[in-house]
């Protein structure tokens, strides 16, 4: 019971902080927008390109945007060393990490909701695209990035070059999730192939790493 309420309180606190400081969301949106624009210059944004590698383009933009959110997930607790305050408390680390995970997920999801239509317009998404499937993939994929990312955000928070370490840890471990979400998105964009086993894989990844992250939360949030 107290686990759930602490998780919810952490989410509330994060969202409130984000509303006041707007440090993550604005950076995320701008960053992802730039990625999409740069892509459209780097490759010619035609419908044929989108049918071939659209899923990859979309997820690279999401991934970059997500990295900002995940870096802030525990970076947000830096001012006046609030994280030390959490570490000194007897609170359940798992509940705290679960809250951080949920808030990162929400922020990434909001950014993606804004980016997705933009992507569809700028890259001439084919009319065959199955948007329901793409949204479902985005939810599962974002979950995967958020659960791994908050864990590694907590881990890299001890290091001096925090922002540098996070992608080094997160990207290799997330490779299977990235493959699955890109492939599933590609299937839904073109309407060719079968996506359900990618979604199953993604879901399995989500469950395994959520459980593992919460079980090992003590390790990454202990006193220095």
């Amino acid at each position, binding site marked *: 019971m107290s686990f759930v309420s602490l998780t919810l309180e952490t989410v509330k606190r994060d969202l409130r902080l984000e509303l006041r400081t707007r440090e993550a969301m604005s950076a995320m949106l701008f960053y992802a927008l730039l990625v999409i624009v740069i892509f459209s210059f780097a490759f010619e944004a035609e419908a044929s390109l989108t049918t071939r590698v659209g899923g990859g383009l979309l997820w690279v933009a999401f991934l970059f945007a997500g990295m900002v959110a995940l870096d802030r997930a525990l970076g947000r607790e830096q001012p*006046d060393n609030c994280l*030390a*305050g959490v570490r000194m408390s007897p609170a359940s680390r798992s509940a705290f990490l679960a809250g951080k995970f949920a808030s990162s997920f929400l922020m990434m999801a909001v950014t993606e909701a804004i980016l997705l239509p933009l992507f569809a317009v700028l890259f001439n998404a084919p009319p065959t695209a199955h948007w329901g499937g793409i949204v479902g993939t985005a939810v599962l994929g974002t979950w995967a990035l958020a659960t791994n990312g908050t864990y590694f955000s907590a881990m890299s928070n001890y290091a001096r070059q925090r922002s540098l370490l996070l992608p080094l840890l997160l990207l290799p471990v997330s490779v299977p999730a990235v493959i699955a979400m890109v492939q599933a998105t590609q299937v839904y964009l073109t309407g060719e192939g079968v996506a359900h086993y990618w979604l199953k894989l993604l879901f399995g990844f989500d469950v395994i790493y959520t459980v593992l992250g919460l079980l090992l939360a003590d390790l990454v949030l202990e006193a220095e």
Partner: protein
Amino acid sequence: MPAELPGGGREATPALQCRQVSRFFGSFPALRNVSFRLERGRMLALLGSNGAGKSTLLRIIAGALRPTYGTVSIAGVELPGEGAKRQVGLLSHESFLHPALSVAENLAYYGQLYGIDDAPAAIAAAAERAGAQHLLKLRVAELSQGMRQKAALTRTLLHRPSLLLLDEPFASLDRASVASLLESLRQLRADGIALMISTHTEHLIESWADQFLHLERGMAISRQGIEGEAEGRRLDDHVAAAVTGREAAGGGRASQPALNQRGESANQGVDPRGVRR
């Protein structure tokens, strides 16, 4: 009352016991084999020059740092046990309050972290003791140094610790703030909370501390000569004088006997292994 601790044998277990606590930062020994105990309701003055290890020791006891060697027990529970963390509060130069949130919002979150059931009541009670009722609605970023200190003290008292650690609480405070902080601390001690205060401005607390722990280069050295110094000390700071006067009246204890008592308890309380005689 916060002084009412769960469990029976609270006479036997000290509020705080450090056994051979050492901490290295890389190859730098910030703290070396510090051992001492602090009884419940007593006050310990932690003295020493800058970089002597005072902050490190306090952060270790608060559970923010792990000792490289040695153990810390709070109210009989060894850190990092949950029970130990519940009993201790740290007031440091970092407030542990997020500047973008109001004091009340910060406190509500800490209430959640410590699993406090009736958070609003607990916040009100802690704010009253810290003299911070009028600050609750304000954003932490807008507070002055003194106000921030009061807000931080409220946070520290929120979960009713039996051991309160204060790291340089008087630094960068104006005289009025010092006076009100001293008043709060005196009240807390009267309520049976064990205090451990590190300070440069020792004249503010030396007249009412029970024990002295002097750290130098990470090591504990007792200050045996302090009684002699105390007799001839200049109480020129009117704030300190006012507070000692009030203490003598309120605590029903004259300042001269207090000095003797202090001398004895300093010898008993500090573990001989941690003391150079």
